[in-house]
């Protein structure tokens, strides 16, 4: 049986994972965005892999995942904090009972 602390840690780890994924997607979105408007620079830096058309297509593909991952990250963080806060409160209640 998982205790509250373990569950809280798991939630935090999952949230952290989503956070890093969101950050990577955000950086990728920025890179592909520059690949559209500053295609001569980005194309040169990426050995012609990210030309304007490829950047544009990838930029479109990554929009929704970035939104979903970011919202999930925020949602998990709020949930985790709520769980942690509740756990702490219950602990205090226990203290009160003992006190």
């Amino acid at each position: 049986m998982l205790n509250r602390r373990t569950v809280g840690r798991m939630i935090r780890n999952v949230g952290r994972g989503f956070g890093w994924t969101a950050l990577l997607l955000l950086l990728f979105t920025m890179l592909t965005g520059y690949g559209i408007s500053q295609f001569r620079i980005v194309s040169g830096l990426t050995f012609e892999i990210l030309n304007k058309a490829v950047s544009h297509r990838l930029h479109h593909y990554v929009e929704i995942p970035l939104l979903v991952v970011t919202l999930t990250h925020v949602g998990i963080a709020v949930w985790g904090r709520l769980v942690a806060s509740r756990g702490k409160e219950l602990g205090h209640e226990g203290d009160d009972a003992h006190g």
Partner: protein
Amino acid sequence: MREMMRMDDVWRRMKGKYVVVVLLTGLLVGAALAACGGPEPGPAEVTVVPEVSPSASPVASELEAVEVRQYQGEDLSSIDDFRENAIAGPQDVSLEGYRLEITGLVDSPLALTYDQVLDRKQYEKVVTLHCVEGWDATILWEGVLLEDLLEQAGVEDEAIIAIFHAADGYTSSLTLDYVRENDIMLAYKMNGVTLPPERGFPFQVVAESKWGYKWVKWVTEIELSADADYRGYWESYGYNSDGDLSGSMFEGQ
């Protein structure tokens, strides 16, 4: 009461760390909503420009051209509202030795000087250029009809597309049906000013209701072809060959 305090506690802990994320999310949602309301091609009306002999207005030709910013009650963008996004940067095409070539499936290939191109009926119309990058510019374009040029060369029956070659090596194509049905122009002026070098001097295709990559600048050659599968520069990288504003931006979607 306790529940409220708990929420307050959570909010206090989180606001510093996550306010940036929330703002970013809001920006993303806003961008997504803005992207949903894509561009709508507006009908463009072609007007014939009254013929004025250059010698009839010597004073006017000596004055510096002033950009028109309103036309028939419609606000126009500035010629500076464009972003530079040519494949090899702005081209400086000199009229010395310049020829607009009309080649391929034509009865008589032509090599016209700048003045020879302009020596025909001239038209003007307000058309909005929509770039795939997300910006647009509404400009009063002045030019000659491509149809008139093609007629002079005599298009062979099997020709179905016109391939435009630019001074920087860029290419794109338009179907002849589209060119004829929409009175597509080869512009030499924008907002009453001769095309600046960075905007495509001497000639730019005004491909209304098409994405900006179809608006070839610095046109040096128009090649008539029967190759229905022809792909221009950006089209060969995945942009849609039709380039219709109302259709998909990418091939195969």
